[in-house]
C-alpha cells in the first residue's frame, strides 16, 4: 500500500502542494512567475556553461595526447598495420568533448584529414556498403571541391567503392608530406563486430597506399576491443590507448567546481538531499555527465516550483509587486527562519530577530533584511568553500605523503557528501592529527602549496602567516635547518610549532565547516529536493501502471476533486480498463475471453444492483442493446490492456484463449511473490 501511494505521488505532490499552501493567497503578483522562470533559466544556463567549461579543461590534455599520437603515427612504409588510437572514456559524453577539441586542434594544424563516423552513418541496418558510402562521400564533400567531386563520382558504383578515395588521394596529394587520413568510429560498441572486421580488413588493404589512421571511441574499457573483435582482426591494428579520466574523477571535478569552488560564483547551493540524489544517480545507475546535468535541471525545476523562490532574485523583487501580506508571513514560516529565531546564541542578530518577530510584518523592512541576508549567505558559502578547499588540499597532500592514508581519510566525493550533511567533524579531526606528525620538509611543502595561490581568502592568509613563522624559526638561508639527531628524535620546538599549527587550523575548520550556521530564509538559495525527485529521475513505469490500474482513484483523484483519494471507487464509475484488469488478476494463467467478459459483465451488473428491478421489466430488445454496449466497452478495455502488453495470444488456433503476462502479488495471498514480466517495463 505504502509504495503504491508513492508511485503515483509524483503527480499528486504538485496537487497537494496546491491544496496546502498555494491557493491560499495570490502568488503570481506582477510577474512573480516570470521572475521565477527567468531566475531558473539564468541559474540553469550558468551551471551548464560552467560544467561544460570544466569538462573542456578536464579533457584538454586527453585530446592533446590523442592528437600527438595521431601525428606521430608511423608512415605507410614503416608499418602496414593501421595505427589506431583507442579513446577510452568511462562515461558517454567525454568522447564527444574530446573529439570536438581534437577537431579544433586540427583546424589549426591542417595535418590530418578527419572524418567522424557515427552509428547512423552505417545505416539503420548497419552494412559495410553504407559505411563505405558515407566515408567516400563524406571525405570528398569535406576536402574536395565540386569539380573533383563530379570527376570521381560518375556513377552510383563509385560512391560505394573505396577505390575512389584511393584515386582521389593519389591525384590530389602528390607532395612529399601527404596528410594523414583519420577515420573516427564514434560508437564502436554499437556497431556489429562482423562489419567492423570487414571494414578493418578493407582499410588494411588500402593502408599499403594511403596513410589511414583509425580512432576508436569506446565507452567502457579497452577490453571491449578484445571482446568484440577476433585476434585475426586485432593484429591488423597497431593500437595506442588514450584514456579519459575515470567517471568518478569527472564527478568530483564537476560537482566540486560547481558547488564547492572559490572561483565560480554558483547561483545556488546544494542541500544534503539534493547532493544525495546527484550522488546516487551518478554512482548507482547512470554515470554520465549529461545525465548529471539533467538531474541538476530537474532539481532546479523542483526548486523554482516552490513559491518562496520568487524571492530568489532579491534585487528584482519590489515591495509593490507583492500585495498580499500572507506572502511575507509564509516566508517567516520557513524552517530555517523558525530555527534561527528559536536559537538563543550570540551569533543571532537581535535586531533582525526583533524585525522578524514583529507582529505586523513591515514588508519593506523585511525585503531590506532579505537583501542583507543574501549577502551574508553568499559570504558564508564563500568562506565555507574556501575552508573546504583548504581541507581538500590537505587531504590530497596527506594522500600523496602517507601511503596507507586512504584507509582513514575518505576521498573527495565522500568529503563532499559529509560536508553537505554537516558531519565533517570527524574528518577534520583525523586530518589534523596527521598534521602534527609531519616532518619539517613536509610541513613546508604543504604550507607553500597555499602560498602559491596568492588569493586573499582566509585559509590562504592563515597558511601564509604560518609559513612566515616557520621560515623565521626553522630556515636559514632558504634551507630548512635540520638538527643533527633529527632522524631519530623530533625537534621539541618543531613539535610545539606543529601543534599550534594544527590547533589554528582546527579552529579555522571548526568555525567555517563544522559549526552549524543558520541564516534565515536560506531555503531560497539552497536547492532542496523532495525525495520524489528520485522517482522522476529514475522512474519505475511498470509499477506506476499497475498501481494506476489497481487503484484508479489514486490517479484520478489528483485531477477530479470529487474523487476521494483513499476510498476505493465503486465499480459503476471506475474506468472499464480497471474493471477488466480486476477480473484479469483473478484469472488463471491462461483463460478464455468469454469467461472474462462474463466476469466483467457481472462486476458491472452487481455495481448497478438497485436498477435491477427496473431492468427486468424492460423488453428483450433493450437487454440486447445493453449487452452490445457492454461488449463494445469490454472490447475497448481489452484492447487497451493488450496495447499495454498485459495480454498474450495463448494459442494460434483458438483466438478466444489468451494468456496473462503479468502476475502480481495480491493482498492476503502469501504463497509466492509477484513475478512481473518485462513487457511493461520495456
Amino acid at each position, binding site marked *: 500500500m*505504502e509504495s503504491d501511494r508513492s508511485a503515483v505521488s509524483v503527480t499528486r505532490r504538485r496537487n497537494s502542494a496546491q491544496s496546502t499552501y498555494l491557493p491560499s493567497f495570490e502568488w503570481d503578483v506582477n510577474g512573480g512567475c516570470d521572475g521565477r522562470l527567468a531566475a531558473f533559466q539564468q541559474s540553469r544556463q550558468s551551471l551548464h556553461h560552467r560544467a561544460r567549461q570544466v569538462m573542456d579543461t578536464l579533457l584538454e590534455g586527453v585530446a592533446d595526447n590523442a592528437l600527438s599520437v595521431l601525428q606521430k603515427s608511423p608512415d605507410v612504409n614503416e608499418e602496414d598495420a593501421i595505427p589506431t588510437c583507442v579513446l577510452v572514456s568511462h562515461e558517454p559524453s567525454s568522447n564527444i568533448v574530446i573529439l570536438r577539441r581534437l577537431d579544433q586542434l586540427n583546424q589549426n594544424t591542417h595535418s590530418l584529414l578527419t572524418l567522424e563516423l557515427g552509428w547512423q552513418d552505417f545505416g539503420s541496418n548497419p552494412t559495410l556498403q553504407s559505411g563505405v558510402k558515407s566515408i567516400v562521400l563524406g571525405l570528398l564533400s569535406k576536402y574536395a571541391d565540386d569539380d573533383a567531386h563530379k570527376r570521381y563520382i560518375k556513377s552510383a558504383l563509385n560512391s*560505394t567503392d573505396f577505390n575512389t578515395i584511393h584515386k582521389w588521394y593519389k591525384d590530389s596529394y602528390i607532395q612529399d608530406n601527404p596528410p594523414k587520413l583519420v577515420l573516427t568510429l564514434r560508437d564502436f560498441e554499437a556497431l556489429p563486430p562482423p562489419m567492423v572486421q570487414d571494414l578493418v580488413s*578493407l582499410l588494411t*588493404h588500402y593502408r599499403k597506399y594511403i596513410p589511414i589512421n583509425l580512432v576508436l571511441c569506446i565507452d567502457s574499457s579497452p577490453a*571491449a576491443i578484445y571482446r568484440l573483435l577476433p585476434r585475426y582482426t586485432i593484429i591488423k591494428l597497431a593500437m595506442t590507448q588514450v584514456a579519459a579520466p575515470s567517471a568518478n574523477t569527472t564527478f568530483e571535478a564537476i560537482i566540486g567546481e560547481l558547488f564547492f569552488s572559490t572561483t565560480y560564483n554558483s547561483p545556488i547551493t546544494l542541500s544534503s538531499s539534493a547532493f544525495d540524489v546527484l550522488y546516487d544517480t551518478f554512482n548507482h*545507475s547512470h554515470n554520465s555527465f549529461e545525465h548529471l546535468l539533467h538531474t541538476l535541471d530537474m532539481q532546479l525545476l523542483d526548486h523554482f516550483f516552490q513559491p518562496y523562490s520568487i524571492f530568489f532574485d532579491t534585487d528584482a523583487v519590489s515591495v509593490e509587486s507583492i500585495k498580499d501580506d500572507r506572502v511575507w508571513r509564509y516566508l517567516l514560516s520557513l524552517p530555517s527562519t523558525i530555527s534561527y529565531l528559536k536559537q538563543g546564541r550570540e551569533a543571532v542578530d537581535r535586531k533582525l530577530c526583533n524585525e522578524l518577530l514583529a507582529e505586523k510584518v513591515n514588508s519593506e523592512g523585511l525585503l531590506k533584511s532579505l537583501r542583507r541576508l543574501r549577502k551574508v549567505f553568499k559570504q558564508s558559502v564563500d568562506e565555507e568553500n574556501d575552508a573546504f578547499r583548504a581541507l581538500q588540499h590537505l587531504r590530497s597532500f596527506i594522500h600523496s605523503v602517507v601511503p596507507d592514508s586512504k584507509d582513514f581519510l575518505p576521498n573527495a566525493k565522500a568529503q563532499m557528501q559529509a560536508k553537505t550533511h554537516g558531519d565533517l567533524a570527524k574528518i577534520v579531526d583525523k586530518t589534523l592529527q596527521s598534521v602534527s606528525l609531519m616532518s619539517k620538509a613536509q610541513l613546508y611543502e604543504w604550507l607553500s602549496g597555499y602560498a602559491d595561490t596568492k588569493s586573499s581568502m582566509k585559509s590562504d592568509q592563515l597558511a601564509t602567516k604560518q609559513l612566515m613563522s616557520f621560515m623565521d624559526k626553522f630556515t636559514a638561508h632558504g634551507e630548512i635547518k635540520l638538527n643533527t639527531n633529527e632522524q631519530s628524535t623530533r625537534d621539541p620546538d618543531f613539535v610545539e610549532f606543529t601543534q599550534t599549527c594544527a590547533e589554528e587550523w582546527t579552529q579555522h575548520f571548526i568555525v567555517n565547516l563544522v559549526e552549524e550556521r543558520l541564516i534565515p530564509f536560506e531555503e531560497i538559495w539552497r536547492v532542496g529536493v523532495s*525525495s520524489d525527485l528520485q522517482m522522476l529521475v529514475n522512474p519505475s513505469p511498470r509499477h506506476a501502471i499497475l498501481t494506476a490500474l489497481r487503484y484508479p482513484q489514486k490517479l484520478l483523484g489528483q485531477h477530479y476533486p470529487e474523487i476521494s483519494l483513499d476510498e476505493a471507487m465503486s465499480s459503476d464509475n471506475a474506468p472499464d480498463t480497471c474493471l477488466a484488469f480486476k477480473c484479469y488478476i483473478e484469472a488463471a494463467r491462461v483463460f478464455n475471453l468469454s469467461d472474462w467478459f462474463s466476469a466483467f459483465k457481472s462486476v458491472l451488473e452487481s455495481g448497478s444492483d438497485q436498477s435491477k428491478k427496473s431492468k427486468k421489466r424492460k423488453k428483450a430488445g433493450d437487454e440486447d442493446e445493453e449487452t452490445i454496449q457492454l461488449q463494445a466497452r469490454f472490447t475497448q478495455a481489452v484492447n487497451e490492456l493488450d496495447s499495454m502488453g498485459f495480454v498474450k495470444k495463448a494459442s494460434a488456433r483458438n483466438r478466444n484463449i489468451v494468456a496473462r503476462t503479468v502476475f502480481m502479488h495480491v493482498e492476503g495471498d502469501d504463497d509466492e*511473490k509477484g513475478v512481473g514480466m518485462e513487457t511493461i517495463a520495456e
Partner: protein
Amino acid sequence: MDFTLDFLKQALPRNTPFVDSNEAYNARLVVERVLSAFGVDGDSTNPIERLIDGLSTLNGGDSSKRFIVISDAHRLKSYGNLLIALQRLPEIINSPLTLILTSNQPYTTLRPTNGLSPDPIVVNIPSVTHKDILDYLILNRPVHIGENLHNSYLALCNFIMSSTLALNTQPKELLKITHKSWPTFIHPWKELSARPSMRDNDHLTLTFSKISKGVIQSINSSLPDHMDLLQASLPTDLTRCAQLLLIASYLASYNPPKKDIQMLSISSDKRAKRYRPRRRDIGLSKQNKKPAQNLLGPKNFSFDRWLHIYGSLLHFVSESTLTTYSLNNLKNDSRVFTDNELGQVDVLQNIAHLSRIKMVQRTCPSDRLDGMTFKCAIGYHVASNLAKSFGVKLHEFLWDIS
C-alpha cells in the same frame, strides 16, 4: 598465402586482375575490378550479366590464356551467384580463362549446389615448415644488425618461434614481432662491436624472456587466461547497479534454478537455507554424476530470473552501497521493494549496456523481446571480487562450491 600471391603476381600476365575480396566487398565491385583490369565494359545493371557481357567482347583477337585471381575467396559465398558465373565463364564466353581462388578455408565451405558449376582442381598449399620460417626470419633480419650479432639474432628467433609457434604460423607476423623485440633483446649487450659468445646469447634470452612476458602474452592474446586478466581489471568502470547485475548474472548462470529460493530467499531462517549437500556425500552416493557447473561453463538464464536474483541480492549488500531511495524503500516494506526496484528504467538501461559490451551475452535473437535469455560472460574471480566490494561473499550464494 601471401607468398603464393606474390608468386602468382610475378608469374601471371600483367593485366591479370587480382581481386581482394576483403576490399571488393560485394559482387558489383568484384566485377568492376575484373572488367577494369581487362579494359572492357559491359552494359547491364546486374553484375553477373555485366561481367558476361563485358568479357564476351574480349573474345575476338588473341586467344591467349587469361587469369582471374581472387584472394580470400571464402567471402564469395555471400556474393550471390557470382561464383557460379565465374566458374562457368570459359564455357559462356567461349574463350580460355582460368580462375584462381585462394583462401584459408576449404573449398567445401563455398561449393555451390551439385552440378551448378564444375569442380575446381584443389591445390593444397602446405604450411610453411619451422625451418623455412626460421630461414625467412634470418633472411629478413634488420639491416643494421652487424655481422657479430647474427648469432644473437638467431637466438632471438629461436626463442620467439618456440614461444609462439603453437598458435601462430604466419611468417610475416612473426617477422614483425621479431623486429619489434630486437632492440629490447639486445639492450643489455653494451659492446655492440664485440661478438657475444654462446653463453652470452643464452643469458640475453633469459633476461629477455623475463621482460617480455607481456609481449608474449599480447601475442597469445586469444588464450583464455589473458581474457580473464582483461576482465578482472574491467568492472570498476561500471556503475554499481551494473556491477550488481553482473554478480546476479554469475549466480544465475552457475546456480541451479531450483535452488534459487533456498540460496537467495530473504527468510529469517538462516540455517535452513545455508544447508548444502557436502561434497563427500555426493561422492558416496554416486547418484549425482553431473560435474560441477564451473566445469561446464555458464548456463542460459531468463531475463526474469536475472532481475529477481538482482532484486534479492540488493537485500544482502551492505548499506553504504545502496541509494538512499532504495534504502528508504527497503525500510518501509521489503516485499514491495523488489517489485519497485526492478522496474526502474536505469536497471534496464544498465542491462542494455552490459549486453552491448558483451559482459553478458544475449543468447536469443535480437528481435525477441519476450522471454529473453542471457549468459554470464565473467569468471569466478571477477564475480567474487565484485561481491567483495559490495560487502557480501559470493560463495554464500553459490550452490556448488568446488
